C-alpha cells in the first residue's frame, strides 16, 4: 500500500511539473511579448531608445528574458576587483555611435560583447538619435545584452525555488550569536502569558513557530512556499502570500514591542523579518520599538485571506450539498418514476442545461427579494452575507449528487445480490440500508476529497457575482493583466490540489470498500 501510494505521488509530481511546463511554454513562448504592454500607461510617455530599453526591462521583470545593461557589467567588474571606480566611470562613457568611442570604452565594449556573446546573449547597441547636433528625447545611446530564458532552465529555477527553508545563516550582518531558542512564554505577548514559541536568531523570520488565536492556531515560518511573485495583480508579493494573507481593515491591538514599549498598533510581531541595518536606518522610530534588525512586520487585518473566504463558503456548501444531495438522491431512487422522482429530475435538468450564470443571477434576484444582502462587504461582515454565495454554490452540486446517487442506487438495486437478499427474506428497508446504500455510496465517497480541496480554489462566477474577495478570480484577473508569475503559481496550486484529491479519493474509497485493494496490481 505505502509503496503504491509513493509511486502514485511520484507520478502525480511528474504530471504537476509537466502541467507547469506546458503553461510556461504557453505563456512565455506562444504569447506575443508585446501583449503585456496593452494596459501600460508608461509606454506613451517614452520614445525612441528609452522606450526600447524600458520594454526590455519590463520583459525581464515579467520573466521573459535576462537583461544586462553595459553599466551592470562594469559594476560587476568593479566588484570583482578587475577595475577601479575611476576606470569604470571612464569606460561607461560610450559614444553616440560606435566609431566615436574612446580607446578605453572601445576596449571594454569589446570585452562586454565577447563575454556575453559567449554566454549566448545577444548584444544590442542603439546609436543615439541626433537631430541638428542635439539629442532627441529618449534618444540617448544604449548598450545592453539580453538572452531569452529557455523553458527548461526557467522550470528548473522555478521548481527548485518553491520551498525555502529558513536557516540561521540567512542574516547577512552581525546579529550576535546565531541559533534557535525555545521559550514557553512568547515575548510577543509580553512574555508573561503561557504560549510556546521557537525563536531564531540569524534566520530570516524571528518567530519560526508560534501560537495565536487564529485558525489553525499553530503557525510556522520555517518553510516558506514561493509560487512566483506577482507583477500587476499584487505587486511584488508572492502568489502564495496573495492567497493566504488576511484582507480587510487594519486590526489594532495593544502590542508589546521588544523594547517593552506598549502601543496600540496593528503590527503583527509574529511576522518580524530580518533586514540588514534597518534598526540604524529606521531612526528613532525603529529604535524606540526594536532591539535588533528584525523590524519588518506585516499588518494585522480583521478579514480573512482570499483562500479563507473561498474555503469558508466552499466548505459549508460542500457539507450542505452532501447532507442534502445524498438523501434526496436516495429518496428519488426509492420513489422511482413517482412524483418525487419526476420533480427531482426537473430540478436536475434545470441545473444541467441552464447556463450557470443564468441561475446564479436568478438565485441572486430571488435572494435579494427576500431581503438577503446580495453583495459582500469585507469591512462590515455579517453571517447573512454568506448565505447567498453558499446557496448558489450548493444548489448545483446538490443536483449533481442527486443525479449520481439516484443512478448508482437504481443500478445496484438490479444487481444479483439484491435479488438474493430478497429471496433470503430480508425486508426492503434492510436491503436498501445495508446492501444497496453501502455499495452505491462508494463512488460518491471518491469525490469527497476533491470537493473539499476544490473549495480552496474558489468559484469564479459566484465570487464575481456576489463580489466575494476570494481566490476564484485570481486566475482570470492574472490572465487579464498578463501577470505571468501569478498564472504559473495558480496553475501549480490547482494541479497539486487536483492530483492530491484524486489520490485521497482512492485512499478513502479503499477504506470504505474492503474489496478495493491497491497493494496488488490488477487481480
Amino acid at each position: 500500500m505505502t509503496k503504491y501510494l509513493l509511486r502514485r505521488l511520484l507520478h502525480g509530481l511528474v504530471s504537476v511539473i509537466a502541467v507547469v511546463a506546458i503553461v510556461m511554454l504557453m505563456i512565455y513562448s506562444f504569447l506575443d511579448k508585446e501583449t503585456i504592454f496593452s494596459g501600460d500607461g508608461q509606454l506613451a510617455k517614452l520614445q525612441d531608445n528609452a522606450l526600447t530599453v524600458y520594454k526590455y526591462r519590463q520583459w525581464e521583470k515579467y520573466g521573459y528574458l535576462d537583461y544586462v545593461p553595459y553599466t551592470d557589467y562594469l559594476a560587476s567588474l568593479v566588484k570583482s576587483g578587475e577595475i577601479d571606480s575611476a576606470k569604470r566611470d571612464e569606460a561607461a562613457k560610450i559614444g553616440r555611435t560606435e566609431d566615436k568611442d574612446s580607446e578605453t570604452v572601445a576596449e571594454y565594449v569589446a570585452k562586454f560583447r565577447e563575454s556575453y556573446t559567449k554566454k549566448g546573449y545577444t548584444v544590442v547597441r542603439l546609436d543615439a538619435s541626433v537631430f541638428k547636433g542635439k539629442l532627441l528625447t529618449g534618444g540617448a545611446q544604449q548598450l545592453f545584452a539580453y538572452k531569452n530564458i529557455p523553458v527548461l532552465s526557467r522550470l528548473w529555477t522555478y521548481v527548485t525555488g518553491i520551498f525555502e527553508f529558513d536557516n540561521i545563516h540567512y542574516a547577512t550582518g552581525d546579529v550576535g550569536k546565531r541559533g534557535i531558542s525555545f521559550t514557553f512564554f512568547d515575548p510577543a505577548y509580553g512574555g508573561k502569558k503561557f504560549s510556546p514559541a521557537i525563536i531564531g536568531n540569524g534566520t530570516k523570520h524571528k518567530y519560526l513557530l508560534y501560537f495565536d488565536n487564529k485558525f489553525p492556531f499553530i503557525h510556522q515560518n520555517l518553510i516558506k512556499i514561493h509560487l512566483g511573485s506577482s507583477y500587476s495583480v499584487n505587486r511584488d508579493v508572492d502568489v502564495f502570500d496573495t492567497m493566504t494573507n488576511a484582507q480587510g481593515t487594519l486590526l489594532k491591538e495593544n502590542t508589546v514591542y521588544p523594547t517593552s514599549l506598549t502601543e496600540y498598533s496593528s503590527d503583527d510581531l509574529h511576522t518580524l523579518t530580518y533586514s540588514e541595518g534597518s534598526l540604524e536606518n529606521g531612526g528613532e522610530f525603529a529604535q524606540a520599538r526594536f532591539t535588533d534588525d528584525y523590524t519588518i512586520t506585516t499588518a494585522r487585518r480583521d478579514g480573512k485571506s482570499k483562500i479563507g473566504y473561498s474555503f469558508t463558503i466552499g466548505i459549508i456548501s460542500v457539507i450542505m450539498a452532501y447532507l442534502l444531495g445524498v438523501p434526496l438522491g436516495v429518496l428519488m431512487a426509492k420513489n422511482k418514476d413517482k412524483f418525487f422522482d419526476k420533480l427531482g429530475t426537473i430540478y436536475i435538468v434545470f441545473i444541467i442545461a441552464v447556463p450557470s450564470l443564468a441561475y446564479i443571477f436568478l438565485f441572486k434576484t430571488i435572494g435579494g427579494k427576500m431581503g438577503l444582502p446580495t453583495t459582500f462587504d469585507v469591512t462590515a461582515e455579517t453571517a447573512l452575507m454568506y448565505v447567498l454565495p453558499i446557496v448558489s454554490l450548493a444548489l448545483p452540486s446538490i443536483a449533481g449528487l442527486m443525479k449520481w446517487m439516484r443512478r448508482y442506487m437504481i443500478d445496484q438495486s438490479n444487481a444479483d445480490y439484491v435479488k438474493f437478499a430478497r429471496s433470503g427474506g430480508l425486508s426492503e428497508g434492510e436491503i436498501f440500508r445495508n446492501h444497496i446504500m453501502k455499495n452505491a455510496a462508494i463512488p460518491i465517497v471518491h469525490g469527497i476529497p476533491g470537493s473539499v480541496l476544490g473549495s480552496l480554489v474558489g468559484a469564479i462566477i459566484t465570487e464575481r457575482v456576489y463580489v466575494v474577495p476570494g481566490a476564484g478570480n485570481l486566475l482570470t484577473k492574472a490572465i487579464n493583466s498578463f501577470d505571468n508569475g501569478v498564472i504559473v503559481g495558480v496553475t501549480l496550486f490547482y494541479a497539486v490540489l487536483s492530483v492530491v484529491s484524486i489520490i485521497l479519493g482512492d485512499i478513502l474509497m479503499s477504506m470504505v470498500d474492503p474489496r478495493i485493494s491497491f497493494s496488488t496490481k490488477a487481480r
Partner: protein
Amino acid sequence: MENELIDLKEFNMSDEELFSHFDINQYESEKITAPRYSYWKSVFRVFFKKKINVFLLALLGFLVIFTYIYPLFSGYDEFEHVMTQGAKHLTPSEAMKTFGYNIHWILGSGDVGQSTFDALWNGAKISVTLAFICAAINMTIGVIIGAIWGFSKKVDMIMTEVYNILGNVPYVLLISVIVMIMSASFWSMVFALTVTGWLAIAYFIRTQVVIIRDREYNLASRCLGTSIFKIALRNILPFMTSVIVTLLATEIPSYISYEVFLSYIGMGLADMSLGKLIYAAESAMVTPGRQIEFWAPVAISAIIAVVLYVVGQNLGDASDPRTHM
C-alpha cells in the same frame, strides 16, 4: 407421466372432427413469424410515443426558425438607431410607441438603441452554431480516440498520462491564451474549445469500452477469430449509440453555457453572441426598467439549452434497443 395423457373421449367428438387433413401450404412456410424490426423506425416509434417529445420537437423547430431564418429577414443592424434621439434603453411599450408596432420592438431597445429582440436571435445564431460545431468536432474525435484508447492497453497507458497532464491545465487559461494568440474570432474560439475538449469525451467513451470490451460475448467472438475492428463496429458500437446520443445531449448545452461563462469573465468572442449580450447587459440588470435587456438573453440561452438537452436525453433513451420491446 402416464396420468398426464389426455383421454380423447373427454371431448365427445368423432374421430373425423378431431383429426382433419391439412395440405402443406408452401407460401405459409415462407412467412417469418417474428415481427419486422428496423432499428431507426423503432427509435422514432419509441420517441414519438411520448407526447411531450412532439411538443419539444415543435418548440425546437420554432427556436431553429428564429435562430437561423429570422436573422435573414430582420435586417438587424446594431448601430441603426445609434444617432436617434431617445431610442436608447426603451421599455417594450415605449419602443413600440417610438418605432411602431412590430415584432422587432416587443422586448424594447438596448444601450445603442438596437432592438433587443433582433440582437437576441443574432446572438443565438452565433452561440448555437458554435455549440453545434464544437460538439460535432469534439464528439467525432472523442469517440474515435476513446474507442482506440479503450481497446489497446498500450495506448491506454500513454493516453492516461496525457489525460492526467492536459486535464490539469486550467481550461480558462488554455482558452484565453489561444484567444490571445489567435484573436477573439469565431474560429479561434472553436479551436480553443476543441483543442482539449475531446479529452473528457474520449475518457468517458474509453471507460464504457473497457466495461463492454471484456464481456463474455466479446471474448467468445474474439476466440472465434473476429477481427478487433469488426468487434468494435458490430459488437460494441450498437451498445454505445444510446450513450453517445445522451452524451451529445449534455455536450451541446454545455458549450452554450461555457460560451456564456467565458464572455462573462471577459474572455469570450468579439461577436455579439448570447454570452456577450449577457455580459454587456450586466449593468442593466440592476437598473430599474432595464432588467429585460439582461433577462431576455439569459432566458433564451436557458430555453435553447433545456430544449436541446431534454430532446437529446429522450432521443438517447429511445435509441437504446432495450426500450424497443
